[in-house]
């Protein structure tokens, strides 16, 4: 199999961008305190890749997700945080993939919201396993928060797609250079 250099470097680039967003996000304080509640901005990259199509397959997205989660854990040095971001991210990824397959016409923000809710649900499930089922009282706050952050990231990606169609089709792997 021929190694696709462009794809390889883009994958690495995606992982790094996701990581940077993750780190920046950790610095943003949230108005509501709930275990497992996160802005989920790092999801932007996963969402972006999900709609690229072309040469980008599910396993590539998984690869970026794994690299991002593991590197983030290495940087923060927090094994517990790894458990949270991995479970949350995995829930989000699986839900978004199934949304994408089941509803071909679903808009980016819609898929994003579903992913964000799944992300928070995954995180609170881990929290419940670590502490007790009592943490589920936070679920409504996490769902509402997930909807807001999901719309935020969803529209961010949507506008990137809308504003730069040529750029998108270029990295999507249509083999046509940017003109």
């Amino acid at each position, binding site marked *: 199999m021929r190694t696709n250099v462009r794809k390889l470097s883009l994958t690495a680039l995606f992982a790094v961008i996701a990581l940077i967003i993750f780190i920046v996000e950790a610095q943003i304080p949230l108005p509501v*305190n709930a275990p497992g509640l996160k802005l989920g901005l790092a999801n932007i990259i996963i969402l972006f890749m999900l709609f690229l199509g072309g040469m980008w397959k599910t396993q590539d997205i998984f690869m970026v997700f794994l690299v991002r989660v593991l590197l983030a854990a290495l940087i923060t040095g927090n094994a517990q945080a790894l458990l949270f971001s991995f479970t949350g991210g995995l829930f989000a990824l699986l839900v978004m993939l199934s949304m994408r397959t089941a509803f071909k*016409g679903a808009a980016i923000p819609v898929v994003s919201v579903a992913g964000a809710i799944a992300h928070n649900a995954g995180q609170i499930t881990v929290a419940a396993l670590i*502490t007790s089922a009592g943490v589920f009282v936070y679920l409504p*706050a996490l769902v509402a928060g997930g909807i807001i952050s999901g719309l935020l990231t969803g529209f961010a990606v949507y506008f990137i797609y809308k504003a730069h169609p040529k750029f998108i089709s270029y990295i999507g792997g249509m083999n046509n250079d940017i003109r």
Partner: protein
Amino acid sequence: MKLLSKQNIVFFCIIGVIFVVSVIVWLVVSDIQTENTTALVYKNGVLIETISLSAVETEYEYAINDDGVNVILVKSGEIGVISADCPTQICVNTGFIGSGVIPIICIPNRLEIRIVGGSHELDAVAG
């Protein structure tokens, strides 16, 4: 891919409904009041302390040092974590709780403080 296709409008409506419902549920849950409150302190899932908040006259500090430090302040009718060595500080930022069902949670140190109604004002439980 059309943003405002029929299907997507339905999706956005569903999202809107879920949002409104979860906000309402959250507001209702936050507003639940309990009387004669007792705080249950759980560490690593084990109930380690039962504090009758309505019986507290003078406020006092309560430090839990085991796989992480959480310093709890117990006041008349209220309990809160005032400092902790965890990175997230969610437990400290939650502030004081005294009635209602929102617990204080410190996931890194596996600490949980829950409020329940009713109290027998006990100093300790043998068992």
